[in-house]
């Protein structure tokens, strides 16, 4: 044994949990794969192309930014892939490739990197980019083609007072954005996220519950009773499930306290339903989440837990 050997020293703790940022991001990517795969199956090669364009553009713009700004290159954390993938799943499959590129660059450069990169942004990059595209290219973002025929999304059909096929909506054989049509695929991914303990059940649960209550009250007032089909169609349609499980749960832009998460989710539910029922059907979830993101720091502030032993007095 070498007598002069000097061991490594560091501050405690000397062991660390296995979880890492890149592993968490990988888990989110894995969870999104069923929805992405179904989107490609449903909408064909254009969907695949958009997914590839968005992820590649997101990664490339982050890389270029880091190189230009002489920052440490952090592509390894895979957060750019998650942003690109979520953005792509939110786009209509017929969107022009250049619009997808603009959206991706906006997400990474304007929303994420300008504010300091991963963890520093106050809005979810993918959600902000979707809203940006909705406003900039309203026509292109609202053109949905399904099985080579321009067709309305189930939400638009509902709004117009038409009938929808719930089973097809659950499976995903409908018109809509690439990743939002199949409730089944989204739920499979969500189960994976719960098993891997990546997301807290509170945000999706209370978000969806709020929507259920809101829609029920709305249909009681306007239709004189709870309409099960109407309710179920609202839950299965549009970006609600995609938003509730994958976008609203974004760590960076949601509150951390358990009670804060519930308040945040309820606000998202109220906003989503208000936009859907009284405004335009398209993009309600994204707009709701964006506003929720802005409120998150405030919610966090007012829901701060009491420190252990605080207020305890000598007896």
């Amino acid at each position: 044994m070498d007598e002069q050997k000097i061991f490594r020293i560091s501050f405690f703790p000397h062991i660390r949990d296995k979880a890492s940022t890149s592993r968490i991001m990988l888990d989110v990517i894995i969870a999104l794969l069923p929805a992405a795969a179904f989107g490609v199956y449903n909408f064909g090669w254009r969907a695949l192309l958009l997914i590839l364009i968005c992820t590649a553009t997101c990664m490339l713009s982050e890389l270029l930014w880091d190189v230009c700004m002489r920052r440490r290159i952090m592509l390894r954390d895979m957060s750019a892939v998650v942003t690109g993938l979520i953005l792509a799943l939110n786009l209509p499959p017929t969107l022009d490739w250049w619009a997808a590129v603009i959206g991706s660059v906006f997400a990474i450069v304007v929303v994420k990197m300008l504010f300091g990169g991963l963890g520093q942004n106050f809005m979810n990059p993918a959600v902000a980019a979707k809203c940006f595209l909705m406003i900039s290219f309203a026509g292109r973002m609202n053109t949905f083609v399904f099985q080579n025929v321009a067709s309305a999304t189930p939400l638009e059909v509902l709004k117009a007072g038409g009938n929808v096929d719930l089973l097809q909506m659950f499976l995903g054989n409908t018109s809509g954005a690439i990743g939002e049509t199949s409730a089944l695929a989204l739920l499979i991914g969500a189960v994976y996220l719960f098993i891997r303990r990546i997301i807290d059940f509170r945000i999706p649960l209370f978000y969806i519950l709020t929507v259920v209550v809101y829609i029920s009250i709305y249909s009681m007032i306007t239709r004189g009773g709870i309409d099960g089909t109407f309710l179920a169609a609202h839950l299965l349609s549009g970006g609600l499930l995609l938003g509730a499980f994958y976008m609203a749960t974004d760590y960076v832009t949601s509150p951390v306290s358990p009670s804060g998460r519930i308040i945040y989710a309820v606000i998202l539910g109220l906003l989503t339903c208000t936009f859907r029922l009284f405004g335009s059907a398209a993009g309600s979830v994204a707009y709701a989440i964006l506003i929720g993101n802005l409120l998150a720091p405030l919610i966090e502030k007012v829901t701060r837990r009491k420190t252990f032993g605080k207020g305890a007095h000598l007896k």
Partner: protein
Amino acid sequence: MAVLTFKGGVHPASNKKLTSSLPAEELIPKGDLTFPLFLHHGLHAKPVVKGGECVSAGTLIAKADGYVSSNVHSSIAGIVKYVDFDSIVIENIGDVNEEPRQVVRPYTELSKKEILDLIREAGIVGMGGEEGYPTHIKLSPEDPGKIKYIIVNGCECEPYITCNNRRLVEEPAKIVEGLKIVLRLFDNAKGLIAIQDDKKPAVIKIKNFTAKEPDIHVKMLYSKYPQGSERQLIYALTKKEINSRMNPADAGCLVLNVETIYAIRTAVVEGRPLISRMVTVAGDAVKRPGNFIVRLGTNIRELIEAAGGFKREPEKVLIGGPMTGEALVDLDRPVTKDTNAVIAFLHDPVVRVHQTNCIHCGRCIEVCPARLIPTKLADYSALGMVDMFRENDGRECIECGSCSYICPAKRSLAEVIVMMKQMIIDEL
């Protein structure tokens, strides 16, 4: 049997199986012994021997100086090599027999003051990791009548460490006797023996000896880290929260480590000072992990040799557990009164991670036993925002390291928080 706990905490791999069922072995030191004269808290002890003097095992070599200070005894016969400000070194002549003690009366006949005196004379301090506070002071609160619970801390929530478990399994009668001695000091107190539910054999053993004791109860605690932290343990048992400005006595509790209770019993029943303790030697670099009954002052190198030496040169060696232990530069350190474990790792996982941005996942907040916001406190510390640090109760950090352990961005949260905390405490 109800399993008690607190909110928060982490579940690191316990790695206790390697050593928890092996009987402790006695280690007779061969080399020189070093006795530090300082404690984590309080004043240096004053040497009462000079270089060249002969001492035997149990001879008082340094006397408590002031109130918060503690006696030091030689743990072996030998010649005093030298005495300096910090320590006394004794050349080992290989005689382990203790100097004869005066006959002690049964503890049931002793007055409270006599019991406390025996504990003070024996130089007993808190023997859990990083404690070292003189026990006779802990046992002399302002109003002993207000103490409701004497808690024996047998949680041992740190991974790898099993020395408390072995004491409970090997000497259950003596632990119960030690607790009965302490209970004599407090008229209104009940004894609680707190053991984590990963030590069921210890619970069963100890229960055999407490069945006929109406004032002693065995409590099972949920196995997680930091269950053995004083404030969290008191909360789990009594649902009372105490903060950094309070003592356990304010909640009517006194918490004593298993090993401390054992030392109290040895001092009061056998009249012997604190000169040895049980130490766990473990970690993947150690050939033959186990528990050893070690004379205080024994060099850690000898302890490692007793455990079969290293398989390969380790990257990191710790005194204490992996969650809060201290990393050693080399092995040239003595076993002290609060050394509960020596752990050697072939690979140091900490140097291999690099810190990245906080992703706001909230895991540190979820696990913080003090219900703080570690990520924010770490930011305030790094930016030198003392007022914000105070406002957000940074002082209440219990320094358990759970936040750094769980952080997926691998930030050294505990490190910066503890540094800031020490700074503002030093200012006061």
